[in-house]
């Protein structure tokens, strides 16, 4: 009883973590990133129950895809390289998983990919989710992802095609494998996006020196984890400075300090990917750390959002 009472009093004085981000109301700003434990409704629901403010599905396409041959991941210093190859059972078959995920009680965001504005539009109108995230940024799938997403005119056209059909917020996930990510962000904004998500992985490679073989089955993959965080923070800062729409920060967030840094760079919310190797408890840890930090500083999330731009 005592414990219950003290828990209750902590909760009541803790600053609220609820945010409005890219057209969604979130109970907290920590979201499960696309392609991370997002293959089943059950794992998405579990992430929600363990404290995620929203969850993003595995990227979904028109037809079932088995993905690349293994190895599909390589753990490297300070990060993870992956080339899953967008495995998914097709958006039609996945709707049942989304319905299960919704039982978690937080927004379920469907990540989708296609090879043309028309294909994106078709998938968008065939899915019932709380929002859509357009994967215009996967660095290791031929004809998809960053192969479209590095061209601003295509980013705008795809976003426009989805906006014309979707009745829910549309987020556009951007690639950092470009000279100027702001150009891509502006294109998404012109297309009508409700938010941009930055960043997807950095195109990368690892070689087995015993044999000379590239380790990943696909040879190339994408780097994520702590190694990419400074790149992600810079991208979020640049995007938040230039865009009117919300920026969702992703890349190397594994502790509350990383989330605070992203938010100070201008993020409305953050996503967590690679850090899930530590288990589902990550959401609770980050949220609790953020709460305590805000309480200690007598601040709320709105106060720290984009703070760095006001400091320079």
């Amino acid at each position, binding site marked *: 009883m005592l414990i219950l009472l003290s828990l209750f009093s902590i909760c009541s004085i803790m600053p609220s973590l609820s945010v409005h981000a890219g057209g969604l109301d979130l109970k907290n700003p920590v979201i499960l990133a696309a*392609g*991370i*434990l*997002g*293959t*089943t*409704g*059950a*794992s*998405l*629901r*579990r*992430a929600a129950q363990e404290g995620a403010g929203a969850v993003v599905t*595995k990227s979904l396409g028109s037809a*079932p*895809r*088995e*993905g690349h*041959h*293994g*190895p*599909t*991941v*390589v*753990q*490297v210093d300070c990060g*993870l390289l*992956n080339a*899953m190859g967008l*495995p*998914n*059972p*097709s958006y039609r*078959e*996945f709707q049942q998983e989304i319905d*299960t995920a919704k039982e978690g009680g937080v927004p379920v965001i469907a990540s989708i990919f296609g090879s043309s504005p028309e294909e994106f539009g078709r998938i968008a109108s065939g899915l019932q989710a709380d929002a859509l995230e357009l994967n215009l940024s996967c660095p290791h799938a031929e004809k998809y992802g960053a192969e479209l997403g590095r061209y601003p005119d295509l980013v705008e056209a795809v976003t426009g095609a989805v906006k014309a059909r979707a009745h829910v917020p549309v987020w556009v996930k951007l690639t950092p494998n470009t000279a100027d990510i702001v150009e891509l962000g502006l294109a998404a904004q012109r297309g009508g996006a409700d938010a941009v998500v930055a960043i997807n992985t950095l195109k990368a490679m*690892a070689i*087995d020196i*015993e*044999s000379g*073989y590239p*380790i990943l*089955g696909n040879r190339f993959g994408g780097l994520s984890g702590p190694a990419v965080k400074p790149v992600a923070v810079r991208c979020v800062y640049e995007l938040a400075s230039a865009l009117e729409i919300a920026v969702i920060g992703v890349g190397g967030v594994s502790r509350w300090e990383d989330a605070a840094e992203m938010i100070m760079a201008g993020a409305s919310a953050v996503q967590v*990917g*690679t850090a*899930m*190797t530590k*288990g589902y408890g990550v959401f609770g840890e980050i949220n609790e750390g953020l709460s305590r930090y805000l309480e200690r500083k007598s601040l709320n999330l709105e106060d720290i959002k984009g703070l760095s731009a006001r400091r320079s």
Partner: protein
Amino acid sequence: MRPINSVIQEVRSETPQIRTFRLEGDLDPAPGQYVMVWVRGVDEVPMSFSGPDTITVHAVGEATQALFQLGAGSSIGLRGPLGNGFVLRGDRVLLIGGGVGTAPLAFLGEQARAAGAAVDSLIGFRSSGDVIFQSRFEGLGRAVLTTDDGSAGIAGRVSAGLSEFDLKGYSQVYLCGPELMMWDIISRTREHASKIQASVNRYFKCAIGVCGSCCMDPDGIRACVEGPVIMADRLLESEFGRYRRGAAGSRGSCRG
């Protein structure tokens, strides 16, 4: 970790379809743990340890057939040992295995025996020509053999040998084999489910708990890190025995 290089020390043919590979390296696995085996240029697939430094492989497809092309002196890449492994509980245990699923059980049985436990086994195969590790199991304690076609031991599925054992007398039961065989055993022995540890097979890709490929309904258990050994009472409440997801994440049959 990056894959470590391991030179194959020895290859033993168990049956025309099944071979045991002795690997180099200080792997130190617990029974029930697995390793991701990278056949360079082909694929990376999960294999349970069949001993402290061995894996026993059934050639069923591309990667396993490519592995069969490799002999002593060839090398492969390894990530592991991975997963939770079996936990030894009590001092009188029963092993129930089918086909190549007997491999991790033989390893477990030898460790359990060395730790002083009494170890009995029920092992089943298609036919007499498919039997592996019979002498390993017989060396541990009482071993009952079944074959589907009756060419050796009791005729019938593995469950045909269940009546030879009184499960009440065992502190723990360990299960590994084709999913429908395991499901058959678990559903016939429901009242003992809380003391049955089963090693399950799901489609493993990352093997580090991030990609979601191996997740099981309805709890989202990540079989690659929270398994592959899962208590049977949890499996009874799950997708196990009904469906499992393949490489694309589509639900499919759990045959094989």
